[in-house]
């Protein structure tokens, strides 16, 4: 009964039959595999197929094999980060019922960055695990703050107010970050990684501690799919259909915060992935979150791997950080979404 209601809420969902969605799923998986393969094979240095096979197995005898061995964790990190950000974006757009929600635009990434910098500068934090905890704390605080500011006043949380609150919070956070880092020559070198996100220096040692958080965020987010479908009907209707609105919203938001914090702790702030991916996926599979969320994760992974490849190709022999590529791809999409008169209601 409730499932039917959720489908009714999304008439567009009917256009996307089960068969069509399965076909898209296969296509997306194939694309992900292809992107991963290209990411390992293509880069500043050209390598041959045997080198690639040896390098993937972990051999580092020749330079080419060593290059490939470095690209593997980088590709894995890009896939993880992209998937996490895409999923987080879809969840945030559902929770705030706001087509412009994105961890970067809403200032969540900036909050995570500020928290980590404070942790390093004032509390002497070291080690990825400590960074992840701090980043998640910062992301959570920033998300709660921006949402609170955006929903105060009459009219509730409109896209404009949330985006402005996010922009203001980002500027304030980066001001504080700068003020903390500037006098500390010992940590100022690391500030670069807090201005632009990248996946260049990925190692398994850095990825591993974040995995539990990403997994927890993933399960929480996927588990909230049904709740998000109900929330899409509006709070009253959702409550009438038996959803515990506050709990559904809090659970989903916690999942998104875990994903953003975990990602930002390794990669630094990467914007616009969470904005672009859900809109793309809604075109492919409709607005049912049970399909949308997994698709957002997969598509996000593809997008970030592709952006990373692009960054390696366009700036040869140097590299362009992936956070810059996503901003250039994402900002036009952002403007396009703003220009749509009827942004599809969430």
């Amino acid at each position: 009964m409730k499932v039917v209601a959720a489908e009714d809420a999304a008439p567009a969902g009917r256009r996307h039959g089960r068969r069509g969605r399965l076909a898209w799923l296969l296509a997306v998986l194939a694309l992900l595999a292809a992107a991963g393969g290209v990411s390992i094979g293509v880069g500043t240095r050209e390598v041959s197929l045997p080198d690639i096979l040896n390098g993937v197995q972990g051999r580092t005898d020749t330079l080419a094999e060593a290059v490939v061995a470095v690209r593997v964790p980088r590709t894995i990190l890009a896939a993880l980060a992209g998937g996490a950000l895409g999923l987080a974006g879809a969840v945030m757009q559902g929770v705030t019922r706001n087509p412009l929600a994105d961890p970067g635009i809403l200032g969540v990434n900036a909050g995570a960055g500020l928290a980590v910098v404070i942790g390093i500068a004032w509390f002497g934090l070291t080690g990825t695990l400590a960074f992840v905890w701090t980043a998640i704390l910062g992301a959570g605080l920033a998300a709660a703050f921006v949402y609170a500011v955006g929903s105060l006043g009459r009219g509730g949380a409109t896209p404009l107010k949330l985006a402005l609150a996010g922009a203001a919070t980002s500027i304030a956070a980066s001001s504080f970050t700068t003020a903390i880092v500037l006098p500390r020559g010992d940590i100022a070198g690391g500030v670069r990684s807090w201005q632009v996100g990248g996946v260049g220096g990925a190692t398994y040692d850095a990825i591993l501690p974040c995995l539990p958080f990403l997994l927890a965020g993933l399960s929480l987010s996927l588990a909230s799919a049904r709740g998000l479908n109900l929330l899409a009907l509006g709070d009253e209707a959702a409550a009438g259909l038996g959803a515990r609105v506050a709990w559904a919203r809090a659970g989903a938001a916690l999942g998104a915060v875990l994903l953003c914090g975990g990602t930002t702790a390794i990669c630094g702030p990467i914007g616009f992935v969470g904005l672009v991916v859900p809109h793309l996926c809604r075109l492919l599979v409709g607005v049912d979150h049970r399909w949308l969320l997994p698709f957002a994760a997969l598509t996000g992974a593809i997008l970030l791997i592709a952006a990373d490849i692009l960054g390696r190709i366009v700036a040869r022999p140097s590299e362009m950080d992936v956070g810059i590529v996503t901003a250039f791809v994402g900002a036009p999409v952002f403007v396009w979404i703003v220009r749509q008169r009827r942004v599809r209601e969430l």
Partner: protein
Amino acid sequence: MTEAASLPLAARIAAGRRARTRSRRRIAGLLAAVLAAGGALTLMVGQSVTPAMDVMRVLAGQDVPGAGFTIRELRLPRAVLAVLAGMSFGLGGVVFQTMLRNPLASPDIIGISSGASAAAVVAIVVLGWSGAAVSGVAIIAGLVVAAAIYLLALKDGLSGARMILVGIGISAMLDSLIAYVLLGAPSWTLQDALRWLTGSTNGVTLDQAVPISCALLVFGGLLIGLRRNLDAMRLGDDAAAALGVRLTRDRALIVLSAVGLIAVATAVTGPIAFIAFLSGPIATAIAGPGRPALMPAALVGAMLVLVGDYAGQHLLPARVPVGVVTGAIGAPYLLYLIVRSHGQGGR
């Protein structure tokens, strides 16, 4: 009171207008005096205190051992550039806010400052230009970005909300362009990066004051001359046209002047965060409602940069550029405006 009431209506209006003009002039004079006092203080008090007489003698061109270098090379350029840049930002900002009838539509929020800054960074770091060429490129880029934002926001009429959102997206893109150019630069320093991302007066020299002064004279003069038309535009396009404003020409001139002011100042100090956004509302709060407070806004902008720069240099535990200080002050005000806003549309 009764005497005033018995006067003919026209005379009463004229008297009220004269009184308002007088009070405006008084306020502007007061602000200018405060600004002059602030400027004098920043010349006298720094790491060490220089007596006022010594400052006067240095400014008069005499050689004062111990103080000459500090004042002529360090304090004076900073103070002069802070005042000039602050005036440019304040004036440019209040013009945009008035014309678009929205305190959020200031050039630093809708991305015009980022456009000028990005162009300046590319010109300086990549092309190795300097001086007037940089200012020129910054003005052109500012105008292009302004036109792009305007056109992108134009759909079934112009909506302020859409313009602001488009501007947020565009400035995110331009900021990442700035970061990319700077991070890829061979001699990358944090100070350079900060200048172009948040604005700073570190390392300015007096000859950099020349382009800003010229811009203030030309564009500022133009804006002051057009302020009645700007005032009329607040009533809406139809009413303004009925009052004799040549909308297309005047609007183009006003946008050109405001963007020119912002861009030339940005090409020297970087986009000092939130000055354009803060000056107008503060000036209106001081000067009261009525005609757009152009001169007060310029003076308030100068004051904000001067004080922010001084605080960043001497009052805080660490030395930080002025943009960091004003960013930390301006963001809460922006949040306050959002909370107070009466939910007028998100699309």
